[in-house]
């Protein structure tokens, strides 16, 4: 293409590097800090050498072969490495880069060994632009696809992703394969452009610089890697007119400056939003502005009174004739010498709201985590819906219909409200990798469908906010509601809530209580950790009280909380005892009125 003029070759190399960068990005977006793109490209680079020079295969076929071979090597690498955490993936893939060079050195019959081997340039510019265009299309189509949402979830909170029934390893494996396919394409293109392959062609240099390019360009959007690769290739080329050596130093300087001043890179879809959040935060600190990021606003809370019915939990029925949704038998959990849960036994009747009460550090959240499979107990049994799920993996427990929320909100900050909720639908989604790429009707229908249902869930739990707003910009109370909606998206049979009303206004809390009751109407069992005793008294059919990992009392909330040992051990002071007394009376009073 004549219009590229003097910089034609620079642009061509930029495209090759852009492919490397996108390969790195594809892995990184799932939290896989991998440098393995370079060795995978080395494989296809040398494969293309053999195909072009020895077998005269047309370049179009060679490019396709590069994608296929790259994909397979991605799969191969993922088998051992998908298990490792990100520090170790980084280290192991650096080792792969180094090992690839040794293999190249030693397979001299194929690679030319230490002397290297020339390769005829076969790719033309239209091949380059088509390849980049195709890859960009796939990336764009997958930025918010099923795979895209799962990748975002796995990257930001792998544990949460598992609790949402997302196959964490499976997602990582897909990303490894995608990354491998793109790296494979990059290998063929790059080999053809450099026209000479040696053991140093695909080595640490490309590996490190391409990782850096992705971060420079912005690792929260697929376009970032392309920007980074172009900047890194073109900038030194411009400087080369003025300098005789050391022109790549500018890349180093730029990289350091970006890391200090724009740590999320040049392309950052959430930059504007973040800046505003920061401004708000400073305003709050200095006493101006509205505290929207903190507690609930009065105005918002008033909306709640519109929908409240004043309904409260039915009196506890005898548990004998109701099946247990969840039973905990002799669970014990220790951390080092600390006993977090000590031989706890209780059952939660199906279709009820069940409260867990206790002071901070009583082991409530640990218990929730053990029940959802996030933590493993030292001994004891967990039965959920009649199945013994002791020692099951979190994903499997989630698949059987157990959903949870967290004490500290764990939303995916780079996703919008609706997208956050849609992550919860992953289990029931049927589209595969190709559906979004080819824009099949099935894909369009599924997305529209799920987005619609996500909005309905927003309404159900009463999120006040826009569906397309980034989750991080919601108030704390509303983030909690989104988390509940996300858990409900899984259509669970058992819902575990960890302090759902923390930071909420009184009416907002009441709405959560009524929501829990309406969920039990649909057959759900809700287990809720709550500090708000009024809520427990009003909405829980049964409860347990914990302290220091032990069970202090269990039964109807009013009985539990007026139990003298509980009052003495837990609340201590007389004033509190009196307050509970009055709460209990109030509850009996209002309960009587309803009936």
């Amino acid at each position: 293409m004549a219009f590229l003029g003097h910089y034609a070759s620079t642009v061509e190399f930029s495209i090759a590097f852009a492919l490397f960068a996108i390969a790195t990005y594809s892995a990184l977006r799932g939290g896989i800090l991998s440098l393995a793109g370079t060795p995978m490209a080395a494989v296809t680079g040398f494969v293309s050498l053999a195909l072009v020079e020895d077998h005269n295969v047309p370049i179009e076929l060679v490019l396709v072969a590069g994608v296929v071979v790259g994909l397979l090597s991605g799969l191969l690498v993922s088998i051992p490495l998908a298990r490792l955490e990100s520090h170790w993936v980084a280290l192991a893939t650096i080792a792969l880069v180094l090992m690839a060079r040794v293999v190249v050195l030693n397979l001299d019959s194929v690679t030319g060994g230490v002397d290297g081997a020339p390769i005829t340039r076969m790719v033309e510019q239209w091949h380059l632009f088509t390849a980049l265009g195709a890859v960009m299309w796939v990336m764009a189509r997958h930025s918010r696809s099923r795979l895209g949402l799962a990748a975002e979830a796995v990257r930001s909170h792998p544990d949460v992703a598992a609790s949402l029934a997302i196959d964490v390893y499976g997602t990582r494996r897909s990303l490894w394969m995608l990354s491998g396919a793109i790296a494979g394409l990059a290998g063929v293109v790059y080999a053809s452009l450099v026209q000479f392959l040696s053991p140093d062609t695909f080595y640490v240099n490309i590996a490190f610089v391409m990782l850096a390019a992705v971060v420079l360009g912005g690792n929260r959007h697929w376009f970032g890697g392309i920007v980074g690769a172009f900047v890194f290739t073109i900038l030194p080329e411009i400087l080369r007119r003025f300098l005789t050596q050391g022109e790549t130093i500018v890349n180093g300087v730029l990289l350091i400056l970006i890391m200090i001043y724009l740590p999320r890179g040049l392309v950052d879809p959430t930059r504007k939003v973040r800046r505003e959040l920061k401004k708000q935060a400073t305003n709050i600190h200095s006493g101006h502005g509205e505290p929207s990021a903190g507690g609930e606003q009065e105005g918002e809370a008033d909306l709640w009174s519109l929908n409240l019915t004043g309904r409260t939990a039915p009196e506890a029925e005898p548990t004998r004739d109701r099946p247990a949704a969840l039973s905990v038998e002799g669970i014990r959990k220790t951390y080092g010498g600390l006993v977090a849960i000590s031989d706890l036994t209780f059952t939660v009747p199906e279709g009820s709201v069940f409260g867990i009460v206790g002071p901070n550090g009583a082991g409530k959240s640990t218990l929730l985590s053990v029940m959802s499979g996030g933590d493993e107990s030292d001994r004891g049994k967990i039965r959920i819906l009649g199945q013994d799920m002791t020692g099951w993996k979190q994903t499997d427990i989630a698949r059987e219909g157990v959903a949870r929320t967290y004490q500290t909100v764990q939303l995916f900050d780079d996703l919008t409200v609706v997208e956050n909720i849609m992550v919860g639908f992953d289990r029931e989604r049927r589209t595969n990798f190709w559906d979004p790429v080819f824009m099949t009707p099935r894909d369009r229908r599924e997305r529209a469908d799920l987005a619609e249902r996500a909005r309905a869930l927003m309404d159900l739990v009463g999120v006040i906010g826009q569906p397309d707003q980034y989750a991080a910009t919601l108030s704390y109370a509303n983030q909690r509601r989104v988390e509940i909606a996300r858990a409900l998206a899984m259509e669970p049979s058992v819902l575990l809530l960890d302090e759902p009303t923390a930071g909420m206004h009184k009416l907002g809390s009441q709405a959560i209580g009524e929501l829990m009751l309406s969920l039990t109407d649909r057959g759900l069992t809700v287990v809720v950790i709550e500090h708000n005793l009024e809520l427990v008294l009003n909405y829980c059919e049964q409860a347990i009280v914990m302290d220091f990992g032990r069970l202090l009392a269990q039964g109807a909330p009013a009985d539990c909380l007026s139990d003298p040992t509980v009052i003495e051990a837990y609340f201590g002071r007389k004033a509190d005892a009196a307050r509970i007394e009055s709460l209990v009376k109030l509850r009996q009073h209002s309960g009587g009125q309803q009936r």
Partner: protein
Amino acid sequence: MTLFLQQTINGLAVGSSYAIFAMGFGLVFATMGILNVAHGTYATWGAILALAAFDSLGVPLVPALAIGMAGGGLLGVLVDQLGFEPIRRRGGGLLGPIITSIGFWIILGQLAIIATGARIKTFPREALPRGFVRIGDLVIPYHQIITFAVALLLLLILYLFMMRTNIGAQMRAVGWDPDSAKISGVNPRRVVIVISFIAAATASVAGILSSISTNNVSFTVGEGLLLKGFAAVIIGGFGDLRGAYVGGILIGLAEVLGAQYISNSFRDFITFGLLIVVLLARPKGLMGDRIVGLRA
């Protein structure tokens, strides 16, 4: 048998310079969580500065080596304060420091190429202690003995420093949990500066020793050490000085003996193959990720 012993000695000597490098590299990774790609360039610059002091300024050999070591150490502090400190303040995770260190790796590597004119320089042969010790049929050159002794000595000094001194305890505390250390009255910034200096200075020592034994002062000194030191740290366990030492020695032995008895060209393959096996079998290294040996 003589050949085997001779090669074992060679392996120990090679491994010793890897071990020296690995101790500093591992210390930074364990205490500050930085996978510092630029660490190899400290070794390069230590060697370049020592040679420059000796050659151009006419400083006697031993002080010149000290200048190289101190210069490399200060470079490490400079890089840390310019590049890593701003990220640390923000609470930057794993990726940020790696990328910053890639930036410094590019800059310092390019500057090293410019400084040496992309040529391989050497310490003048006559300035170095020549000669060797002969035990039976075994020949051990002085520089091998020195490298081995320096590595052991550094291990001992650093270990005692970490375990017996107040600042050493502070370093371990920062490694465990910077916030708790701060609450307990540790000045994390001072600790970080001390660690950076020690780590970069030991890298320089490794750079100087290996450039003497391979007759090579150039930008390639650090690259080789970085890759081997990095493997040593993974194999030995990054949180333990002794682990890094053992890892370095093991790699040196595997490399030299592998080249002798298996295949010369596959020697790196053995090293990095060993590394993958260790990563998969014992992801935290042979000695685990304890910080310098003691778990409170």
